[in-house]
């Protein structure tokens, strides 16, 4: 850990912030376009001229101009701060994800633990929103997202622990350094568990029971309007970015690739983007799971597979050490 001057600290924070504001927009626009083409539509075509590239920026401007409503029944303090909790947690997570050995917002020794811990706080924002809204839809949505956190956090942690064991370190930089192509085979079950559990953590379809629009309107976010609502959307897409990059660093070797001395960060970015496209693809392909199926799947499908992966990794490490 090197000592940084205050200028470096501010510069890094600003770079992380800029990345935080652009990458989710990129993923969001990709989702618009990829979903549209998978469903035989064009998607946004007008805003900005070329294939509607400015659609989400226009959306952002529109959200800023909408009235901000705090319902009379709501708990004002918690209601107003919930979007900030969701947003800042993913921002902190993004800061600790390394793009290349030298390119990381905040170089923390146990960065894997840190990323898992702060991205879990994002769900607290959702809970705050649902509880404080004083709305029945929101309350049921928040309860469902709590249930989902309880069930899917575990396979996520177990799968991450398997990667940490295979590398023998809790630092994301160290894990990506220890990565070899063999990981693609012997860590495959853990990687699949990680991808599914991460999608569920983000409440993305097919695991979007908490915000199921046909029964709960918009779940915990029902009462939100304008910019606060937009911040929840932004944090959802930032969550996709964080989880995709994390998957790329843990399982796809991060910056490993041709010319990785100079272009390492580009490889991380490309791999993470690919994972994000897979997450979008899952949304288009599968219908929403029912709430009880969701829980069963986590406990009887993902947890045993993750434990099996732990056993494989542990025995493999001890035998080859």
């Amino acid at each position, binding site marked *: 850990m090197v000592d940084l001057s205050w200028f470096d600290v501010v510069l890094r924070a600003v770079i992380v912030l800029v990345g935080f504001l652009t990458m989710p927009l990129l993923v969001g626009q990709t989702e618009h376009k990829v979903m549209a083409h998978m469903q035989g539509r064009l998607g946004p075509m007008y805003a900005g001229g070329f294939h509607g590239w400015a659609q989400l920026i226009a959306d952002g401007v529109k959200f800023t101009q909408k009235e901000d409503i705090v319902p*009379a029944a709501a708990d004002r303090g918690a209601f107003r701060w919930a979007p900030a909790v969701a947003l*800042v947690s993913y921002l902190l997570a993004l800061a600790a994800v390394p793009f290349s050995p030298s390119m990381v917002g905040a170089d923390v020794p146990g960065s894997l*633990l840190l990323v898992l811990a702060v991205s879990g706080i994002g769900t607290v924002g959702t809970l705050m929103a649902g509880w404080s809204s004083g709305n029945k839809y929101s309350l049921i949505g928040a309860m469902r997202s709590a249930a989902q956190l309880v069930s899917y956090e575990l396979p996520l*942690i*177990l799968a991450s*622990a398997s990667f940490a064991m295979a590398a023998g*370190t809790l630092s994301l930089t160290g894990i990506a350094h220890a990565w070899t192509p063999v990981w693609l085979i012997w860590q495959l079950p853990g990687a699949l568990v990680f991808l599914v559990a991460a999608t569920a953590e983000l409440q993305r379809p097919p695991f979007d029971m908490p915000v199921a629009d046909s029964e709960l309107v918009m779940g915990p976010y029902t009462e939100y309007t304008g910019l606060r609502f937009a911040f929840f959307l932004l944090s959802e897409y930032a969550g996709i970015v964080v989880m995709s990059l994390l998957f790329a660093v843990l399982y796809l070797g991060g910056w490993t690739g041709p010319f990785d001395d100079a272009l390492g960060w580009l490889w991380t970015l490309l791999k993470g983007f690919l994972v994000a496209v897979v997450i979008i693809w899952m949304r288009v392909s599968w219908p929403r799971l029912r709430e009880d199926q969701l829980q069963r799947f986590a406990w009887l499908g993902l947890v045993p597979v993750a434990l099996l992966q732990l056993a494989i990794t*542990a025995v493999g490490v001890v035998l080859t050490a």
Partner: protein
Amino acid sequence: MAAVGVAGLLLFGVAMVMRRLLAPVSANPVRLTTYESGVDPVGSHWAQTQVRYLGFAFLYVIFAVDAVYLFPWATVLRDADLGAASLAEMGIFIAVLLVGLVHAARRGLLRWLP
């Protein structure tokens, strides 16, 4: 890390100031009522709900404690003195938890209870 957190809070603060400058404010008090698909809200705003996933929550707490031990173990697994012995010990530890999970599944705890 702290700087990034401050940057995030600044982003939120500045955005809220911008919103205050740009967004309109209507005087109609109806807009402050709770949304219930367009009908007048039924009953109190604070509804009671049944927490049906209590069993899952207990299981989660048990396994989360297990996960707390997993991460330090990950860093000593390669150690020549500790590696094999710790493997056997953690194997027994996780097997006990697994027996518990199988028991819970067989007793029907992993269903969404009515």
